[in-house]
């Protein structure tokens, strides 16, 4: 079982991102869950989304998880959210930030003994450059493919295209570029 917790703001596409990842993973015969904790949340409010991935049908309907991966897709939430909540000795962190990894970690005490498990990538800048607005949900998945080695980049891109097929070609292309850049730039 692989468990992922997203830290996001409502409106940044974490639910869409979690469902997109789930859709790609499900095409490979695996079982997935993608869900979020929101409800009356307004745009900009801090929220969590979640993924579970397994070879067997997933019957755990508990909301809380002990994540293998934590995605922080809003730079400020790395400072204000409890991003290390329920973590494990091998939990990997992928954090969107314009800071270097060293600068980021030096400002977040909770990460200081986890430096080897922290990965940084500037999904905000990448999405501004490619998609044209701050939409960090798809690039973080590119970084995740690099860190987790779950799938080859090309395989992931091909399947993600299908997930995004209802969008205009221009938007699909921009997302592919964003995912590729995040894959290459994550440190």
């Amino acid at each position, binding site marked *: 079982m692989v468990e992922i917790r997203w830290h996001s703001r409502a409106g940044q596409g974490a639910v869409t991102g*979690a*469902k997109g990842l*789930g*859709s790609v993973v*499900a*095409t490979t015969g695996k*079982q*997935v*869950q*993608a*869900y*979020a904790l929101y*409800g*009356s949340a307004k745009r900009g409010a801090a929220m969590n989304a979640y993924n579970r991935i397994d070879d067997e*049908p*997933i*019957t*755990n*309907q*508990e*909301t*809380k998880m002990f994540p293998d991966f934590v995605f922080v897709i809003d730079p400020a939430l790395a400072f204000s959210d409890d991003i290390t909540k329920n973590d494990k000795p091998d939990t990997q962190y992928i954090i969107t930030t314009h800071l270097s990894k060293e600068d980021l970690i030096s400002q977040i005490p909770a990460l200081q003994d986890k430096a080897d498990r922290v990965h940084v990538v500037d999904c905000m800048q990448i999405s501004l450059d490619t998609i044209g607005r701050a939409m960090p949900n798809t690039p973080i998945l590119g970084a995740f493919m690099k860190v987790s080695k779950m799938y080859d980049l090309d395989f992931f891109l091909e399947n993600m295209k299908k997930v995004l097929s209802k969008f205009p070609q221009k938007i699909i292309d921009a997302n592919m570029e964003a995912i590729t850049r995040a894959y290459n730039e994550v440190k």
Partner: protein
Amino acid sequence: MAKEFELNEVEVWDGNYAASQALRQAQIDVVAAYPITPSTPIVEGYGSYVANGYVDGEFVMVESEHGAMSGCVGASAAGGRVATATSSQGFALMTEVLYQASGMRLPIVLTVVNRALASPLNVRGDHSDMYLGRDSGWIQIDAFDAQEAYDLALCAFRIGEHLDVRLPVMMHQDGFTTSHKAQNVYPLKDSVAYKFVGEYVPVDDMLDFSRPVTHGAQTEEDWHFEHKAKQHKALMDSRTVIDEVFADFKKLTGREYKRVESYMMEDAEVALVLLGSSVETAVLAAKQLREEEGIKVGIVAPRCFRPFPYDLVREALDVPSLKAVCCMDKSAPGGAMGALFNEVSAAAYSTEARPMMTNYVYGLGGRDFAVDEAKRIMKEQKAHADAGHITTDIQQFSGLRGPKLGFFQTRRD
């Protein structure tokens, strides 16, 4: 002619989308709806299928849930296949008309996304609205996840519209936990799904002008009782039809449903009885506890909440090794033992083993039901079994903050 909707063999859908796809495939003639969280996407989905030509049906916008169910009653009496969706306060506002629909024997399908009832206001899931429908004369079927929300919505039409049943059916799923959680769902092709549901057969339809009928007539003491008894009999007799429909569905898909699901009960010493998405978490916890500590835990889950499967609950609990059973109610009992506790205890009383029965109230307003908490409750049942008596209060609260709350103790010398 409605367009075919292209579906993959496996889709990643949440419970709401799964239910809306089932409504589309059943080719509903009329949906009269008023949106409410968390069930909104079901009727929103149907609206978009109508607008995009995937259903030859009509979406009726109304001013309230009372209006929504009234519209459904009218359209169903006129002779159409009718469905809608609601939750919580919307369900409460529909209640008056729910009794009308069942008394008029209209096979409307209501997809309920279970949510807490105010006050305090809360959008998250518990079973307050499902329990509110208990005596309304509807068949109530409970899905534990998104695949089941799809499968059982298709079954709901077959069951309610069956000529030996002709009763409205509620298809329940848990708010957010199921309605907003995407997972692998294996849908049927449009043509296969529609063939399973079948053509709608109108009975005493008001649009048949060659044979005028009256719906919703007044009876006083001369006939009311006979009508209500007949309606109750129809509900009780629907049990065999539900079993038949589930059997047909298994033949078609390989997916098996029973009026009472039971897991690992063959050799169980203790058991939990519960409803909804928590069933899946409890089954996982029971499997783990069996491996970790060798405690023989079983799970019993009434899939069919109404008609209450007294027969099959008794059968599931009639296990010689069974010593302690905990019934878990996800609805505030309002000054009583939980309803599930009361109904399951009545069934357990007529078993040979007569296990000790305890009650937990849990999960109100969407409070998370954790695997570890399920295991703790299972171990507590084991402690009752080992001691030979109930070692705690009979009614307790799971996951509640603040001072421990409990009521009633076993009378012992």
